[in-house]
C-alpha cells in the first residue's frame, strides 16, 4: 500500500474515533475494522509523520503518546476550500483554477453554514 493511502486511512481512523488514540489502538482498529495487517512500527512511523506535518496532535499520556487530529474532517475540509478560494493579487496569485469562478463572499457564507452542520 502506498504511503499516501496509508496516511489517509490512518487519518480516517482518527477522525472517526474522535478520541485521542495510542499507536496500539490505531493499529488494532486498522486490523479489525479495515483488515489492514500492518506492522506496529509502520503505524507508529506514519503517525509520527502526520504529527510532523501538523495535521495530528501528539498528547503525552503517562509513558505513551496519544494521537488526535488537529481539526475534525469537516473543519479541515472547510479550511481547505477557503484556502483554495482566497487569493487577491495584493497577497498572491489564486492557488487554484476554478471551473465556475464564484464570488468568495457567497462561498464563505456557504462554507460557514457547512461548518455549523458539521
Amino acid at each position, binding site marked *: 500500500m502506498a504511503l499516501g493511502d496509508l496516511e489517509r486511512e490512518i487519518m480516517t481512523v482518527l477522525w472517526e474515533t474522535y478520541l485521542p488514540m495510542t499507536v496500539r489502538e490505531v493499529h488494532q482498529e486498522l486490523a479489525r475494522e479495515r483488515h489492514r495487517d500492518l506492522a506496529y512500527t509502520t503505524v507508529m512511523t506514519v503517525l509520527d509523520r502526520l504529527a510532523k506535518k501538523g495535521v495530528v496532535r501528539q498528547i503525552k499520556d503517562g509513558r505513551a503518546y496519544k494521537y488526535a487530529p488537529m481539526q475534525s474532517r469537516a473543519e479541515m475540509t472547510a479550511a481547505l476550500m477557503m484556502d483554495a478560494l482566497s487569493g487577491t493579487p495584493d497577497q498572491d496569485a489564486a492557488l*487554484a483554477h476554478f471551473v465556475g469562478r464564484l464570488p468568495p463572499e457567497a462561498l464563505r457564507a456557504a462554507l460557514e453554514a457547512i461548518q455549523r452542520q458539521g
Partner: protein
Amino acid sequence: MTALLLGALGLTLSLIVPGPLARAHWPDRAPAAAVLLWQAITLAAVLSALGVVLAAPEELTRALGSGKPVAAAALIGALAVAAVIVLRLLVSLWGVSRRSRARRARHRLLVDLLDRAEQRQELDAGHVRVLQGNLPLAYCVPGREARVVLSDGALRLLDREQVDAVLAHEQTHLRHRHEVVMESFTAFYRAVPAALRSRAPLDAVHLLLEMVADDAASKRTGPAPLRGALERLTDAVPLAEEVMPEEDSRRRRTARLAAPQRPSRMLTGAVVAAAVALLVLPTVILVVPWLGQALAVWPL
C-alpha cells in the same frame, strides 16, 4: 525626445490600453493569442520604463552640453535605477512563485488526506481527489504533482458527461501551465507602484485562460456538457446580490459555448502580429537610433 516618446508609450500601455482591451469582446474569438498580446503589452511597458530611465539623463546632459564628469554621473545613476527596476520585478516574481509553491504543496498534502477515495472509483483518473461537502466545487491545484479536486456536492450535481468535461477543462489548465502565466501577471502587478497599475490585465488574462481551457474541453466532449456544468455549478450557490464582473465573465464564457464559432485564423494571426510588433517596433524606431547617438558620446 526618445525618452519622452518612450514615456508616452509606457503610460499609454499601462494606463490607457488595458481598460478598453479588457472590455472588448473580440479577444473571445482568439483567447490564446489575446493572452500573448497582454504579455507583450506588459513587457513593452516595462521596456519603455527602462528606456526612459536610460535615455532621459543622457539626452538631458547632452542637450545642456554638460561636461564628461556630469554625463558619467548621469549614466551611472541611470544604470543603477534601471537595475533596481529589473531587480524589483525579479524579486517579486521569485516571491510569488515561491509562496505559491509552498501553499500548493500544503494544499496537496491536505487534499490527499481528506480524499474520499471510494467516491471516485469510476473516474479512473489517478490525480483526482474528492472532498466531502455539499458546496459544489471543481478546481485544480497545479504543480509537479497536480491534483484535480471535486466536492461530492459537485459529483451529485453533475452527470457523467459533465464531470468529464470539467476534468478536461482542469487538465488543460494543468497541461498548459496556466498558473505560470497568472503568477507572472501577479508578480508584475505587485511590483508596480499603485498609481501606475491596474487590475484589468489580471482579470482579463484569467478569463482568457478559462476560455482556452473551455475550448480544449469542448474539443473533447463537445460544448454542451461543459456549458451545462458551468450553469449548474454557479446556479447551485445562491447569491445575495448579483456580482457584476463575475456575472459578466460567466456570461461571456457560456455565450461562447452556446454558439461555438470557428476559431478565427485571421484574427489570431493579426493579434500575434500586433504582439510581436509591440515588442519590436519601439526598439527599432526609437531605441536603436538613440543608442547610436548615445554610444558615440559614451562618457565612461
